[in-house]
């Protein structure tokens, strides 16, 4: 089933993303966070069986995180990007790992890198970082340079190297 027909049925508005190089159409849709699961299930039942990725964007000026669920259909060759917005001061959403198993890993990474909590995912253990005790590093207000200076700047490269 074509994405446009599904959008019509679900009564959601979409915009087209610009494409050069590739050829398939890409649709971007802002959806209500409560309805997201039903919409993904609907798309999955209608050919959009390839879950490409889950991305998170920190819109710090608006005080929001954007979660982008990206689906692809091998039948109609269309990409759909479903965006939801969650508040930045209390970032919480429910886990959708029962729909596609790889969502579990994406949620783990976003929990670690952005601090978003996914209820229902009991495997939100560290994925990439080790012994991390600062704020989630992919947030826009995390300053890599300052962190590196504070953490490593005061340590001389070799023992006793700062002595005259």
């Amino acid at each position, binding site marked *: 089933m074509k994405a446009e027909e599904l959008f019509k049925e679900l009564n959601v508005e979409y915009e087209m*993303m*610009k*494409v*050069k*190089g*590739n*050829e*398939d159409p*890409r649709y*971007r849709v802002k959806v209500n966070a409560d309805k997201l699961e039903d919409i993904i299930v609907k798309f999955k039942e209608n050919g959009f*069986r*390839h*879950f*490409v*990725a889950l*991305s998170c*964007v*920190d819109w710090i000026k608006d005080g929001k995180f954007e979660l*982008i669920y*990206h689906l692809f259909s*091998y039948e109609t*060759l269309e*990409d759909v*990007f479903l965006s939801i917005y969650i508040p930045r001061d209390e970032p919480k959403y429910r886990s959708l790992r029962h729909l*596609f*198993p*790889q969502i*579990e*890993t994406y949620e783990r990474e976003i929990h670690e890198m952005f601090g978003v909590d996914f209820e229902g995912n009991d495997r939100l253990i*560290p*994925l*990439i*970082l*080790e012994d991390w005790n600062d704020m989630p*590093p*992919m947030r*826009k207000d995390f300053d*890599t340079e300052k962190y590196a200076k504070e953490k490593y700047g005061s340590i001389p490269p070799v023992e006793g190297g700062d002595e005259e």
Partner: protein
Amino acid sequence: MKEFELFIGPQHVGVTGNMMYHIWVDGDTVVKAETNVGYLHRGFEKLMERRSWLMNIALIPRICVPEPDVNEAAYAMAVESLMGWDIPERAKYIRTIILELARISGHLLAISGYAGAIGLYTLPNWAIGDRDYILDLFEQLTGGRVYHIFIFPGGVRWDLPDGFLRKLGKVLDYLEERMKLYDEVMFRNEIFFRRAIDIGVIPKDKAIEWGVTGPNLRACGYPYDVRKTDPYAAYPDVEFEIPHYPKFGEFEAYGHGCDCYSRMIVRRLEIEQSIRILRQVIEKIPDGPHILKLPNPIAWKVPAGYAYARVESSKGEFGYLVISDGGKMPYRVHVRGPSYTHGINVMEAIAPGLNIADFAPTAFSLDVCPPDIER
């Protein structure tokens, strides 16, 4: 019998790079596996937010070491989408040359890794040696052997040097001859049949839902390839087939598909198809400019918006989601690497039931590349 734990990696010949599999074993059968990554995390996505659009080109090839060019191509295509640029025809063909050479070199590395894991130690040496001829071509074309920093938004950096296409043709002839020897040593070898057929099976009905892409998906019988499903560069102009189970041509389709055997045969046949594509490109490459006239690189501003570009790497779908807020630097870039699903949830799901000795070949047959998991 009580289970015991085993760590495969991060320093181990049986893993495909700097990553670790933590496995629980009963006797010599794997009962559970967990992937542990993070040894290569360099925070590229964060670094890209602090660098200009053009500076990022020098950064991103590092995201996939064995096949860096897919990063440049996907990123360049995403930026071109936001800018609304149509690149010159000649640039499309030069990109195709680069991407296909990178695919052959990626497949040679995958074959060498797999052959080493099943004890055929001749092939790794041959494949690494043959890959060097491709690196020579890259050096002549781009100046770099491993990282090329050659595909730019708007085209490619330089035109082809004199005599490059002739040399490319010779290397293709050489590789085609070598493939016959590869077949004798590995692809028609009883050891390979016994170690690969019906080992490490991905359930066919789950393959798409699990996010399997590339040769691993085609080994499950789905003829999906980004070069056909979402064409880019000069691929619409050239003819090629998509090898998939059970259409293996001169090779027997042993087993039930979705196994190590099918995955390696698909890679073997794709080298042939890449050679075929490159021969057509040598014939058809048009004259003209190789890059658009670009604005001042220091003051580059990319219009606000979202763009997603994908290419077919030797490992599967490689995609870049690029978000711009209209500034001189990307606002956010998300890299979708094929190994993210293959290396973590697929490997964890198919590992239980494997013999310990089959664990490393299965990991190699999925062609997992850890740098694109953790970026």
